[in-house]
């Protein structure tokens, strides 16, 4: 699963910074039909977790009400340099992960 994580290049210690993630996933609702008239089974990313140097800072339970190729933006407080690591799982059990480095100055 292609995913892109964005954090600012560098942040001052104690500052609040923006974390953004965009994951390529159809977030199939289960309400659509294919060209043969067969229902396409529901398959959405149902759980998304963000950890900052191993500590959970954000968790989301998502549903079919979230648009395809889910985009989530939230905030974190800069503590130590390290990594923001995302992991997620969809209804079919497919797991994905992506990370971005955070450089904390001061």
């Amino acid at each position: 699963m292609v995913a892109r994580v964005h954090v600012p290049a560098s942040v001052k210690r104690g500052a609040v910074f923006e974390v953004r993630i965009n994951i390529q996933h159809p977030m199939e609702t289960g309400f659509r039909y294919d060209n043969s008239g067969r229902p396409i089974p529901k398959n959405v990313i149902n759980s998304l977790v963000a950890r900052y140097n191993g500590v959970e800072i954000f968790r989301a339970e998502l549903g079919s009400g979230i648009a395809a190729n889910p985009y989530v933006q939230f905030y974190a407080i800069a503590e130590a340099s390290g990594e923001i690591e995302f992991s997620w799982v969809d209804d079919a059990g497919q797991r994905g992960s992506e990370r971005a480095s955070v450089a904390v100055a001061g």
Partner: protein
Amino acid sequence: MKAPLRRRFISVLAAMTAMAALPWVRAARAQSDPFAALVLQVTGGAPVRAGRVTVDTPRLADNGHSVLLKVSVECAMTAADYVRSITLLSGRNPRPIMATFHLGPKAGRAEVTTRVRLNGTQRVLAIARLADGTYWSGDAEVEVTESACLDAT
């Protein structure tokens, strides 16, 4: 001295009538607020106060498949006073609970942005649960129109 039989009979009858009317009263209130049952599900019956929560959406959505939505809560976000979770509810989608975001004191700011699917013009409600156990809500109305041309590709 026990009340006369007549008086006891009337008071029991009144109580029974009042008890029977309760579901109708609750149902009537629910009909006037489409979110009532959902909110009950989310908060487990705890009272929800309108305020402190802002839901930012375009007034007119380009397309119901993807609508930018920002929810923010007025909260200091300290170790003692922070937002535990934010739940997004749809007034019209087949699955009305769109998402639940779990924050915490390390979140820095009680603000989450995402893109949602909206199944037609509707009201969207966000319920925030604070660390002190209180619930606050905010909402927004979004107009969603159909595309001008049918796309069968």
